[in-house]
């Protein structure tokens, strides 16, 4: 087995500990930045939905501020955002490189995107359901947790999957500016040293990861949709 690996990808084998470190770094960036972004994006998405004109608790000021924030950071290409945020990251975390230094730009890159996705998912909840819940005496919190977030779960899972997959892409980009991970491994050890097998393996690993995420997301979304889109025969 080992001989086999050695034969088809000698360079990956030679740098195997570095390769595993890179995988770990990518995973760390993904999990930490992902969790923070999920919480913030969900919060912002809900706030935007609730405070918009005609929402369940309209508030022009909060809506405008958040809306502009999201638009601004959505329109900055991630590679530029990375270098743009270096001074900020350095003041906050003391460093702008490594996994730690990558978290802040990743969060800034993902949250606006995810916020819009959450907003779209929540927009799919029919106003009639909200009205019915209001007629039963639900307040703002009741409407958010018992109607919006409850009914939108399958869509939220779908957009979370999409965002998670795009986050993987961003972590590799962050690698290009010193964050480590599979991105920098592929560039520094693969591309720069002309080891094509390293690049290939990075691609395969990321491909598998993305496929697993998508499969998991699709499965959960299907599981939580208690509604048949197409009539099927009953058991």
């Amino acid at each position: 087995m080992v001989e086999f690996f050695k034969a088809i990808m000698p360079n990956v084998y030679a740098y195997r500990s570095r390769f595993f470190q890179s995988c770990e770094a990518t995973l760390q960036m993904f999990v930490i930045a992902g969790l923070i972004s999920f919480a913030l994006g969900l919060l912002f998405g809900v706030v935007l939905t609730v405070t918009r004109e005609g929402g369940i608790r309209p508030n022009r000021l909060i809506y405008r501020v958040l809306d502009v924030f999201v638009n601004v950071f959505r329109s900055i290409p991630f590679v530029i955002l990375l270098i743009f945020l270096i001074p900020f990251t350095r003041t906050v975390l003391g460093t702008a490189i490594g996994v730690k230094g990558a978290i802040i730009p990743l969060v800034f890159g993902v949250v606006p995107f995810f916020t819009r996705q959450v907003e779209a998912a929540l927009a799919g909840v029919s106003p009639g359901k909200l009205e019915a819940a209001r007629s039963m005496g639900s307040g703002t919190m009741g409407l958010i947790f018992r109607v919006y977030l409850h009914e939108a779960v399958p869509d939220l899972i779908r957009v979370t999957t999409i965002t998670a997959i795009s986050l993987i892409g961003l972590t590799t980009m962050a690698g290009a500016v010193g964050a480590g991970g599979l991105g920098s491994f592929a560039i520094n050890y693969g591309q720069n040293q002309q080891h094509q097998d390293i690049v290939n393996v990075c691609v395969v690993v990321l491909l598998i990861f993305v496929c697993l995420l998508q499969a998991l997301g699709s499965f959960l979304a299907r599981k939580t949709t208690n509604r048949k889109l197409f009539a099927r025969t009953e058991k």
Partner: protein
Amino acid sequence: MITINHLCKTFRLRSGDVCAARDVNLDIHEGEIYGVIGYSGAGKSTLVRCINLLETPDDGEMTIDGTTVVIRSGRVFLREGGAEKPASEKQLNALRRGIGMIFQQFNLLDRSTVADNVAYPLRYTGMSRADIDARVRELLALVDLTDKADVYPSQLSGGQKQRVAIARALANRPRILLSDEATSALDPDATESILALLRDLNRKLGLTIVLITHEMSVIKAVCQRVAVMADGAVVEEGEVYNLFAHPVQPITKRFVQSASPLGKIDKMIIEGSPLLRVGPGGYLVKLLFHRDCVGDSLISDVSRRFGVNLNIVLANVEEIQGVALGGMIAAVEGAPEAVQAALDYLRDKHVSVEVIARG
């Protein structure tokens, strides 16, 4: 039960102001099924949403089940004793809990089972889980869906969904139920069964029901009294029977026509149907037989007594609120004095006589 005084609501849209309620006054009695009919855009949905304050009126005063709500310039006050205090969101939510509401699109939560949907208004109210379960079972039995407790709404028919919505609306034991076009998305059979259920609940629980619809047949089937709305205003109001017997406003006449074969009479008159031509000296009359005289054999009686010929062109009898209402178009021919005497005799017998044409 519900008194509405001088209720006004205007929507300020970019395309201009839309007045959805202009100075509406209604008095809905306890235990009755009160209908509000109008074409879409007449303001009936807004009116019913003002009752449970889903929509905040601009101005007006409402007394709902003993609670007086005063609205001035879009601000809501509760009147207690002599004092008026601004109503908090919490108080409004409590008020809404005392009024059930059902909708055209059912508005059930798709991701909750039938039982969870019905339990929605009961959760987070301090009620114990066991009590909620018991109440949910009771409610499902009330709407005859006991076997569907663990099913999701998507597996139900429209009529069954509306039953779930009714059970949910009644969970908090409200004394008022608002129904916003609740049967408009249903097929005739389901409509019939939902209306029967509403009638049943009205009788069994003494539930006051405010029912909004654009179909006169629905009003005819369940309502005791009805208000006709057009352009934000109540244009005609009263007992359903009287509205059918003597519609005054043109819009009311149109609604009556739509629901009653008698309406055909008016249509034929308007269209000048050849069936309505009479010979020289004859009268074409429209006769309306009210609750007291439908069963009598008046026509043959008149014919014999005055020696006139009555040729019945069109006739119909229907039952509204259990009372018969008959209508007829007949050509009356005979000696002029005899015809006059015959018509006077009919009037004496409380038949409303209207001469449509003279030959």
